């Protein structure tokens, strides 16, 4: 098996349009959550979200492909921004680069993204529906005759989740294995795990992987509200709204982001003298068996199994872990279950390992979330720094985690990231700082 390393990072998030903005924001305790701008949320119980501000896809796409922007949902657009940064950060020159000699081998590069269920833009669809009203009600017969033809011909292609890697692959000329993992909030980690295995077994030398999702859409948001996964108690205090593992947690806050990393066969990365941030040394996956599948099992068993498998593959002890970035959504019952699972998997060592949840600042960015956390982990190892957790002022009863309430400076060799989703899939990834 080839060893697989991270050599590039790219992130666009509510904390800013680069990975540096993300990390600076996390270190400064900034919060990217605010009142929703994408639509008027006045009648929604949760009126806040993490949105990316002042974003224009034209800043990120080669001129020759600008016409493709008409075929892009926001999920696609933001993944293109993160992809550009990740390749530039890795020193990879692609077909889309302005200058330099291309050092991306199309056939030997894979692309594996986590993506969400992209909801259509209701405003775009509305004229077709409005043309199909009889006596004030929607009329399917009339729609088939008069409405359907008002839908733009390539409409469907904007909303297929695999269109994220499709567009990014066209821009950078990536012809190797391409996959789109659609396991909601666990998708980012699962995509990274799969991309890592593709390189490990030798099917590709490089991969662009991570996740992207733009959740600030009325349908996507309402779904989370109906499931009672959002908080509605902090609409006037958005910066305090998302409170992972805190006693006053009352739900999550959703948002949008794209996080992508460049993975490489370690030998190939060394061969081109790339900056190696970290090695992926262990991954684990499982799932919940839970009739209430919108939530975790109370004991978080499926997260425990994922962490144990990742530890076993990594061949390290729990006490070797220097930092845990948990999923930590701010949904009290799920945070408690995750906390119990981490405790069960790591045993006594858990008391001493700092835990840094990110969603209080980034918001819950769905399929991007796991990738955003991996990027935060890379930055923490690079700088030897763990920022202070935000909004965890008083840890919730039953959560026996060592939340990093103050910033910590120390050498960080191993980081554990974990995630889960409604529907039950779980994932854990262990990164090791490059020491060669």
């Amino acid at each position, binding site marked *: 098996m080839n060893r697989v390393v991270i050599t590039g990072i790219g992130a666009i998030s509510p904390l800013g349009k680069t990975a540096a903005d993300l990390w600076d924001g996390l270190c400064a305790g900034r919060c990217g959550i605010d009142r929703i701008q994408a639509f*008027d949320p006045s009648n929604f119980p949760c009126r806040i979200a993490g949105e990316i501000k002042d974003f224009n896809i034209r800043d990120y796409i080669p001129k020759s492909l600008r016409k493709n922007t008409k075929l892009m949902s926001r999920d696609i657009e933001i993944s293109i921004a993160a992809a550009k940064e990740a390749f530039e950060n890795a020193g990879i020159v692609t077909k889309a680069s302005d200058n330099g000699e291309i050092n991306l081998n199309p056939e030997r590069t894979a692309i594996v993204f986590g993506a969400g269920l992209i909801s259509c833009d209701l*405003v775009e669809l509305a004229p077709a529906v409005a043309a199909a009203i009889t006596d004030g009600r*929607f009329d399917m017969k009339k729609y088939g005759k008069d409405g359907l033809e008002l839908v733009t011909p390539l409409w469907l292609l904007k909303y297929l989740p*695999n269109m994220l890697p*499709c567009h990014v692959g066209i821009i950078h000329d990536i*012809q190797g294995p*391409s996959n*789109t993992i659609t396991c909601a909030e666990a998708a980012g980690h699962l995509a990274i795990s799969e991309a890592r295995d593709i390189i490990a077994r030798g099917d590709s030398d490089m991969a662009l992987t991570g996740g992207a999702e733009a959740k600030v859409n009325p349908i996507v948001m309402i779904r989370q509200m109906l499931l009672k996964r959002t908080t509605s108690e902090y609409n006037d205090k958005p910066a305090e709204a998302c409170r992972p593992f805190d006693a006053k947690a009352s739900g999550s806050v959703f948002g949008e982001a794209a996080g992508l990393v460049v993975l490489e066969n370690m030998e190939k990365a060394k061969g081109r003298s790339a900056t190696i941030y970290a090695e992926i040394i262990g991954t684990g*996956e499982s799932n919940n068996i839970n009739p209430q599948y919108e939530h975790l099992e109370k004991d978080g068993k499926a997260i425990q199994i994922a962490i144990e498998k990742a530890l076993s593959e990594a061949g390290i002890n729990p006490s070797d872990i220097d930092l845990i970035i948990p999923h930590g959504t701010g949904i009290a019952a799920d945070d408690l279950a995750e906390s119990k699972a981490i405790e069960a998997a790591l045993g006594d060592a858990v008391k001493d390992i700092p835990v840094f949840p990110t969603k209080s600042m980034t918001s819950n960015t769905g399929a991007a979330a796991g990738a955003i956390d991996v990027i935060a982990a890379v930055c923490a190892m690079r700088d030897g720094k763990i920022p202070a957790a935000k909004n965890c002022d008083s840890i919730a009863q039953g959560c026996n985690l060592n939340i990093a309430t103050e910033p910590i400076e120390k050498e960080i060799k191993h980081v554990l990231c974990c995630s889960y989703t409604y529907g039950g*899939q779980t994932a854990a990834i262990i990164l090791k700082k490059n020491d060669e």
Partner: protein
Amino acid sequence: MRNRVVITGLGLVCPMGHDAETVWSGMLTGKNGFNYTTIFDASTFPSQFCAEVKDYDLAKHVKNPGLHKDSNRGSGFVLGAAVEACRQAGIDIETDNPSDGIDRTRMGIYLGAGEGSVDNDVFFDAIVKGWDNEKNRMDWNKWADIAFGKMSSMREMEQEPNMPAAHIAMLTGARGPTRSCLTACAASTQAAGEATEIIRKGTADVMLAGGAHSMIHPLGVTGFCRLTALSTRNDSIETASRPFSASRDGFVIGEGGAVVVLESLEHAKKRGAKILCEVIGYGSSSDAFRVTDMHEEARGAIQALEAALKDAGITYADVDYISTHGTSTAENDSVETKAIKSVFKDKAKSTPASSIKSMLGHLIGAAGAAELITCVLAIRDNIAPPTMNLNDPDPALDLDYVPNDPRKTSVNIAVNESFGFGGQNNVVIVKRYEP
């Protein structure tokens, strides 16, 4: 050394039946699954027909129907398929403490699965009430009133593409690696391929791999109609899906669920499971060409085929049967033929290559796994299933598509090809099991 991977169970719920044997015998006797659409009123749509799963009652298939009461159509179908596949493989999903010797933390799930339909009545009603056509704007307050009043939390969540996998987990107790992918029409071939890799690596002993999808809903059919991807032969629906013929005008949209039980050879032998077939090769690629079109010279398809052959350690000359993607669209059938010609060279015209979409329709995310099951049965019975409705061959498409009648022929190695909108290409190769 990577583990050898075998197939020990098959399950299929699709427009031609609710189990693999019924579907297979239907294919060999000229049946098809086409009907005028009944799921919603499509009588004024450009394409008014489809291939629906008919008379399916999930409660007859699963032990605890209440657990799955909110599931979308795709989830319901794949549950039935999983029950069938698990029974054949001897995986105990009936008792709470199974004694089948399978470690549930080493039994995973990998589905190529699509979205569930929106909740049509409330979805459209909320737009009607919220939209101001004069001002061209949505009043989100009005929209939210309807949506919050009428939407069901579970029906909304069940639209998420990871839900079929969640249901399979509840059904089977699987605790191993679980992923769901959605690479359009290539998804479940990719799922089977990546699940194979998970067993090869040794992370799991058993993977329930397959697909689940129904896009027979107003928005799905809208999307495909606007892409002009669907056949509009509303007057002759039984012969509308005609892959590789000169008069092909698009695919017939279908739905279904398909599951194969993949297992490491060692594990299957240890527990005495009956081995149906071996998975010997997997190849994946992307076109990186255009959002809307396949690469004209089939670059991506060729790369995936060659990668799979190399992975299997065989050459094109070893292949006895090709289950094509064969959608019955002008572009796919032409590009796919080019790919086969390029890869199979002197054997291209003599290797049987058929499309069961001529009978089943296009199950979208579930199509690849249904076709993989067909490959296993083709090997078992030494039969190549036919491409039906091939009466006016396209002069440019001159391969052996097994027109109109199944053919008795020696099949030891079969290739399953799937290509998705957006340019993902996936190929899985199966072989008659030899110890």
